[in-house]
């Protein structure tokens, strides 16, 4: 989104300095999606398009309620429909609103090579500052949830902003405002956890004994949380990761390898320089020239002498 609040960053991509974070006395926010109350109406999808001025090209019917079929630079949130046959042999229609989870420890931000292209505000929202994006796609590799999408038109990466522009002026995200059943809620993270806890008690009393909150600690918790009837099996919900974490390959690449590589390169260059200072250049001497010319003369004069 935009660069309106430049003094309340707690994290900034590709930055070795502390980001401007003076205005950090802010509540952590969270969006709570109660999957058990979702009716799959897609009002949130429409509201997201409306507020963010996004229009995906009209596609084709693919035999699924999902429409469009995937997130894209123009689709920042998407209802995903899963049909699950439970142990009693009954069908459960598990509908999940997919989109950026706004991780407390964002893999996209860790992987991003462009300074300030991905930031995290003090309230926890992870935002893409698009004019600084270079379109490399590293955020896709960093993300444990497969969310960011790179545009083929402008080579920028896009995803849900959690309506950071609306939140900045005290409004709730557009999807929250549009939800007709109150399945999407927004507030401080503490309040949302409290809200979820009440709902989970209710679900358990109705027989969903594995009901629970999805706030995965492997990424430090998320600022978009789900209430799931089957919190023991998140992957039932159209592949929501059971244990999302930043890939160890990304961790190594963006962790130890970066400083070690630069040190190695610097040491190699310094090694060369100090070799020059100590051992010095290897110069051809006048005696070498005489020997070399003698070999050429003799070689031309005599029969070839085999050198093994």
């Amino acid at each position, binding site marked *: 989104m935009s660069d309106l609040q430049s003094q309340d960053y707690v994290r900034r991509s590709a930055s*070795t300095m502390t980001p401007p974070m003076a205005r950090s006395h802010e509540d952590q926010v969270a969006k709570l999606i109660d999957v058990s109350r979702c009716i799959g109406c897609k009002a949130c999808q429409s509201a997201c398009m409306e507020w963010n001025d996004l229009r995906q090209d009209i596609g084709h019917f693919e035999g699924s309620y999902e429409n469009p079929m995937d997130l894209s630079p123009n689709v920042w949130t998407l209802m995903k429909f899963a049909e699950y046959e439970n142990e009693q042999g009954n069908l459960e229609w598990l509908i999940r609103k997919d989109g950026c989870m706004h991780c407390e420890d964002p893999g996209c931000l860790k992987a991003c*090579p462009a300074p300030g292209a991905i930031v995290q505000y003090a309230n926890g929202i992870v935002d893409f500052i698009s004019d600084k994006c270079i*379109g490399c796609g590293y955020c896709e590799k960093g993300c444990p949830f497969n969310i960011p999408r790179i545009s083929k038109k402008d080579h920028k990466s896009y995803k849900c902003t959690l309506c950071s522009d609306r939140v900045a002026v005290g409004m709730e995200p557009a999807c929250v405002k549009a939800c007709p059943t109150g399945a999407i809620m927004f507030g401080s993270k503490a309040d949302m956890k409290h809200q979820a806890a009440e709902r989970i008690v209710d679900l358990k009393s109705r027989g969903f004994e594995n009901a629970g909150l999805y706030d995965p600690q492997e990424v430090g918790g998320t600022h978009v949380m789900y209430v799931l009837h089957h919190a023991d099996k998140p992957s039932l919900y159209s592949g929501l990761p059971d244990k999302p974490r930043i890939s160890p390959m990304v961790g190594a690449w963006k962790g130890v390898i970066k400083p070690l590589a630069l040190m190695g390169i610097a040491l190699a260059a310094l090694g060369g320089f100090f070799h020059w200072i100590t051992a010095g250049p290897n110069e051809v001497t006048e005696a070498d020239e005489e*020997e*070399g010319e003698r*070999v050429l003369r003799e070689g031309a004069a005599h029969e*070839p*002498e085999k*050198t093994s």
Partner: protein
Amino acid sequence: MTREKTVIVRYTTLNRVNHWITAICFVLLVLSGLSMFHPMLFFLSELFGGGQWARAAHPWIGIVLLISYLGLIVQFWRENLVHKDDVEWMKSIKYVVTNDDQRVPPVGRNNAGQKMVFWSMTLLIPVLFFSGLVIWEVYFGAATSIPVQRAAVLIHSLAAIAAILVWIVHVYAAIWIRNSVRSMTQGYVTPGWAWRHHRKWLQELASDQHDKSVFRKRP
């Protein structure tokens, strides 16, 4: 002191043009690649017109480098085949680095260090090329899965670091062994240079009655 004497052609015009196309590509790739590798080096992307341009140009330069390096492989593979002599040379490496040339066994056209540079790059450049294709978001972003791309980006970084280290050794050796750079810019070496650094090669050239094309007057 300039000598009006015979010199030896070490690298032909084709060798040199091919080498320097590769070298220019390599330097551009190092600059644009490092800009995307470490935040403190992001400023290097300005040399290419900004981050978007560095990101966009990097893979195309890589394609030119691969094609160019294939040309170098065709021209140089035979003279870089490893022999028993190379083991002897490696054993005397401490005399090599201390400029104690008398104690280093005579060397043919290339020494073991030069061969290692050649074969390292021959291995690393295809690795960089194919891992680079996988992470070329614009054209191949959808061709492989994200886990494959994560592995590719890690392999690409490690191979690039290895190639940069080999390159530093290569460049420094060329500066350290005086007049080596001239052999790759103007193409020739003096008989004394050949005697000092590649004695067997000099003797082979001198004893070859038929091929005198490698000798010419010093310019």
